[in-house]
C-alpha cells in the first residue's frame, strides 16, 4: 500500500499529458502577456505564485522577505517575457528567476553579517523532547522541524532538494534552473537526503 502511495507521489514529478496541456495554456498566456495583456500575466501569477513563493521561502526562511522576493521575481519575469524561449517550460523559467532573486538576497544578507543558517542546537533542543510519531506530530511542529532542517543544508543542496522533493522538477529541469550538471545535482540531492534524514528521520521511524 505504501509502495503504491510512493508511486503516486513519484508520478507527480513526471511531465504527463495534463502537464502538457498546462504548458500549452501557459504558452498562450505568455504570448498574450508579451503583447502587453496584463490580465494574461495576472493569470500566470495566480497559477505560479504559490510554487514560486514556496520555493523562495525554502531558500530564505523568511515569510515577508519571501513575498517581497516573489514580487520581484514576477516583475523581472514580466520585463523579460520576450526572452522566454518557446521550448522552455514557464515554471522552469520562473524558478530560474526566483533562484537568482533569492540568491541575490542571501548574498546581501551575508554581506550584512546576518546568519541565515539556524543553529544546530535549536534542532537538537527540539529533538530532546523525544521522537514523536508523525501521526501524532502537530503540523506546526512538523513544519518547524522540516524548515529548520532545510535551513541547515548548504545552498546548493537546499536548492536541488527543494526543486526535486517539493517542486517535483525533473533532473533536466533542475539542471536548467540551477546550471548544475546532472551528476552534480544527483550527488547534491543524495547528500541532502542523507542530511535531512539525520534531522527528521527520527520522526519518520517513530
Amino acid at each position, binding site marked *: 500500500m*505504501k*509502495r503504491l*502511495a*510512493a508511486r503516486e*507521489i*513519484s*508520478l*507527480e*514529478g*513526471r511531465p504527463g499529458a495534463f502537464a502538457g496541456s498546462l504548458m500549452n495554456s501557459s504558452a498562450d498566456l505568455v504570448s498574450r502577456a508579451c503583447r*502587453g495583456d*496584463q490580465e494574461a*500575466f*495576472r493569470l500566470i*501569477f495566480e497559477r505560479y*505564485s*504559490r510554487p514560486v*513563493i*514556496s520555493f523562495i*521561502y*525554502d531558500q530564505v526562511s523568511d*515569510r515577508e522577505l*519571501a*513575498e517581497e522576493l*516573489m*514580487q520581484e521575481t*514576477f*516583475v523581472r519575469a*514580466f*520585463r523579460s517575457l520576450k526572452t522566454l524561449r518557446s521550448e522552455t517550460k514557464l515554471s522552469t523559467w520562473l524558478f530560474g528567476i526566483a533562484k537568482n532573486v533569492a540568491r541575490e538576497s542571501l548574498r546581501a544578507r551575508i554581506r550584512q553579517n546576518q546568519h541565515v543558517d539556524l543553529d544546530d542546537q535549536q534542532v537538537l533542543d527540539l529533538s530532546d523532547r523525544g521522537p514523536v510519531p*508523525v501521526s501524532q506530530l502537530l*503540523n506546526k511542529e*512538523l*513544519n518547524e522541524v*522540516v*524548515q529548520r532542517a532545510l535551513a541547515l543544508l548548504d545552498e546548493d543542496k537546499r536548492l536541488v532538494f527543494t526543486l*526535486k*522533493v*517539493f517542486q517535483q522538477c*525533473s*533532473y533536466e529541469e533542475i539542471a536548467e534552473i540551477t546550471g548544475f550538471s546532472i551528476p552534480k545535482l*544527483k550527488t547534491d*540531492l*543524495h547528500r541532502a*537526503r542523507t542530511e*535531512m*534524514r539525520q534531522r*527528521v*528521520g527520527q*520522526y*519518520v*521511524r517513530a
Partner: protein
Amino acid sequence: MKCDDFLNLLEAYVDGEVGEHESERVRTHLMTCSSCETEFEALTAESELYARYDRELQISPAAWNGISARIATDSSAVEPRERRDMRGWFAGLFAVPRLGFAFSGALAVLLAMFVVGYLYFRAQPNQRLLVAGAKDVRPGSSPISVQPQRSVTNSGEVTNPENPPPDQSTVAASGKEPRRPRAIPDDPGVLFTDAAYTDMEDRDTASHLDQAQKLLVSFRSLPADDEQEIDVSYEKTESRRLLNENVVMRRDAEATGKFPTKSVLGSLEPFLIDIANLPDKAPASDVRQIKDRVQRSEIVAELRSY
C-alpha cells in the same frame, strides 16, 4: 545487480527518473531483497513527511497590486523608440566615456609627458626661440632673421623702417616671407618683427668676439722665443670653430647693414685663418709672425672695445 547499485538507483526510482525497463528491474529486486525494501520504505516515508510540509504561506492581495503597479510604471516609461534613440544620441554627446584601465593609463602618461614638456620649454625660452629661428637657416645666411632696411606699407608706399607708420605691420622688402609679428608686452599695440632676433644676434656676436679676443690673447702669450716647435693644437681647433662662426656672422652683418660689426669681424678673420692653418706643432717663427701681427694691428683692443 548488487544492492549498492540498486540503492543508487532507488532514489532515481522514487523520483520517477528511471525508464520503464529500469523500473521493472527495481521492482523485481525489491521483492527479493529485504534491505533494499527497507531503504525504499524509508524513502517513501520521508516523501510522505515532506508532502505534509506546509509552509503556511499566505499570498496577500497586495502582492499582485504591487507587481501590477510596478509593471504599469514600466509600461508608462516605455517611449517611442525613435524618441528614445534621439535622446540617447543627444545624451551620448555629453556622456563621460567609460575608460578602461589601459586607456586611462595611456592617457595619464600622455598628460604627464605634456606637462613635463611644457615645463621644460617654459624653463628654457631662449633655446626655444633659437630652435624656432633655426628653421630659416640657409647656407650663407644667419639663422637669425634679417632686418629689412626698407619696409613697404600695405598701400605700397615705401617707408623708412626707423619710422614705420603707426599701427601697421611691416612687410619684408627683401622678398622673403615676412616673419610673424611678435607682440611686446611692454608696449602693446606696437609690432616688431625682428627685435628679439636682433638682440640675440648682438649677444651672439658679442660672445663670439669675446671668445676670439681670449683666443688671441692666449695665442699672443705663447712662448715663441726659441726655435722649438710649439704645440698650438688647442688654439688651432678653437680658431677653426670661431672662423666658421665668423664667416657667417660677417655675411649676416653685411646683409643687415651692420657695418661696424662687419668691419670688426672682417679684421678678425685673417688672424683666425692664419691660426687655423697652422700645423699642430707649429714652427716658432710662424707663431711669432702671427703674434707680431696681432700686436701691431691692435685687434685685441678693437675686439675689447666692440
